[in-house]
């Protein structure tokens, strides 16, 4: 009888702890969502042309169909057509990159893996740049071929990196990132070459290699959304498996995960997210690396929660990185957003690496 009482007590305690964990997660999601909504509004206000709260409110109400349009055409274009679309796009790209990063890290058991370090982003950029060079235009069922080229490039680069780091049937952790950097550097050089041959301006090269949201709008949001949604749905379905896969291939097999199939679906999902992001904004590093680490340190490694947190955190991060890229330089010059993420992310990641190493986790 005593043993049974002890058992139900332990169960009650555990259930209680899990409830508390769920509340903490809900609070975190609420906090991040609130911060995200606030950031969207603030980021839309930031810019050379002053945007008043009244004008923004009026445009939003009009766009939602709750009130007739009252602001003039120019203000409306600036607020809705330029700023809002760009901020939303930056948020979506940030979410895609951070979620792709968390998937790559869990799947490849490598804390340094992300779309950028694995060369997947650069692969995507190369694919898209190649399509532009070949002059493939038009659209298939309303979809531009650009993300498809990026997807082919991303999958190609990922396969190359996985093959290069494979030794005796196993992916070697040490060589994985090395292979990623080699592939990425090589493809960056190819992109520069393609763009030079195409006699395009330096800015086109910088766009693909350093990433930018300059001149991006609703069209690009429309391009990204199908890829983002497909990728997120594929990945979301396998969040539980991702937890188990983070223990390694053998463990996963022993626990009943259909490793080959699940891993393939997850790699494709993460590649879809990366390709969509790259096709609209070029290569942006560090978001997929830093955001998952911060979120994991905050609320633990369980992917069912981590995916949500990374989506929100990635959106938040890139919205502000782009706001900085737009407003840091005087005289309306823009920085490539990849420069901002690297400037902020590099030292921050170094700090994470040091403190984590000290705690002996990686």
């Amino acid at each position: 009888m005593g043993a049974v009482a002890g058992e139900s007590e332990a169960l009650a305690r555990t259930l209680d702890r899990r409830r508390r964990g769920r509340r903490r997660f809900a609070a975190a999601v609420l906090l991040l969502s609130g911060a995200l909504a606030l950031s969207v509004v603030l980021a839309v206000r930031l810019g050379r042309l002053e945007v008043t709260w009244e004008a923004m409110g009026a445009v939003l109400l009009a766009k939602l169909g709750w009130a007739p349009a009252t602001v003039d055409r120019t203000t409306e274009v600036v607020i809705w057509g330029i700023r809002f679309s760009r901020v939303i796009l930056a948020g979506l790209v940030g979410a895609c990159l951070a979620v792709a990063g968390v998937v790559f890290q869990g799947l490849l058991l490598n804390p340094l893996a992300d779309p950028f370090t694995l060369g997947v982003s650069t692969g995507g950029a190369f694919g898209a740049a190649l399509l532009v060079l070949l002059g493939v235009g038009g659209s298939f069922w309303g979809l531009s071929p650009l993300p498809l080229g990026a997807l082919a490039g991303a999958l190609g680069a990922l396969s190359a990196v996985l093959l290069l780091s494979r030794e005796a049937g196993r992916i070697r952790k040490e060589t994985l990132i090395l292979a990623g950097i080699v592939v990425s550097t090589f493809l960056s050089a190819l992109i520069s070459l393609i763009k030079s041959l195409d006699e395009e301006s330096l800015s086109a090269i910088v766009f693909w290699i350093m990433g930018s949201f300059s001149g991006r709008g609703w069209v690009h949001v429309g391009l990204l959304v199908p890829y983002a949604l497909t990728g997120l749905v594929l990945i979301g379905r396998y969040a539980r498996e991702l937890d188990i896969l983070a223990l390694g291939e053998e463990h996963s097999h022993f626990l009943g995960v259909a490793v080959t199939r699940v891993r393939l679906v997850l790699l494709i999902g993460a590649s879809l997210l990366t390709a969509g992001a790259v096709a609209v904004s070029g290569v942006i590093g560090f978001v997929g690396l830093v955001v998952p680490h911060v979120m994991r340190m905050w609320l633990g490694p369980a992917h069912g929660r981590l995916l949500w947190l990374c989506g929100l955190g990635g959106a938040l991060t890139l919205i502000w990185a782009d706001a900085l890229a737009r407003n840091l330089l005087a005289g309306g010059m823009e920085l490539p957003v990849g420069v901002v993420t690297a400037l902020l992310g590099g030292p921050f990641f170094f700090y994470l690496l040091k403190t984590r190493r000290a705690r002996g986790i990686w």
Partner: protein
Amino acid sequence: MIRVEDVSVGYEGRPVLRRLSFQVHPGEFVGLLGPNGSGKTTLIHALAGLLAPQEGRIFLNGEPLAALSSRRRARTVAVVPQATDIRFPFSCLEIVLMGRYPHQRRAFSLTEADLAAALWAMRETTTEAFADRPVTDISGGERQRVIIARALAQQPAVLLLDEATSSLDVRKKVEIFELLSRLNREGLTVICALHDLNLAALYCRRLMFLKGGRLLEDGPTETVFTAATLERVYDTPMEVILHPGYGRPFALTLPLHPAAPARAASGGVP
């Protein structure tokens, strides 16, 4: 329960086990012995469906192992692999709950039954104390017990252990084997690969000796645990004595050099 028919298995072009045939019945406690590289781990991997046989077939409860879905297989067979390092700071309870995966429906349907099974497994392996600690923060021996708890949470009919207790101290080893013995009496089939001959002789009721990928000897511990077999398997001089109190055989390793027995004869061994 497990039927291995003429199985050859290995890695790309390198066969490790050659033409193995044997059966394991429900409720057996089998020890898998043999020198390094004799194929113990390969056999465990084949029985767990991780390695597909190049020839021959393995049946689980009459069904071909290869035809079972991953989840169905994992509901019947659980594996405790050799000590592994886990990089992600899941709590120990989360690790044990992963053992419930093959029993769960899609998505996140963790039931109270799942939690109860995990807590039971943690109590049996005396790991409840660190249920909330990150698995990356505990010692190797503790981690191995958490992995054993995870395998028990799968509520399998067959438990395969690959050197699962090698990293544990004597007391923890014996505790784990006492636990395995008890679960075995309650119906769990246990197959464990191990290096500790005397631990095997003490707890396993049947021993299989592998050498060079072949099954050299297979039978009840009392019959096959002899100096002759051990010397043949390990190429090492051995002596087997019967423990006076327990009536179980024990192996003594003797020095390789011929000078040694003379000293032993003159009273070197107490």
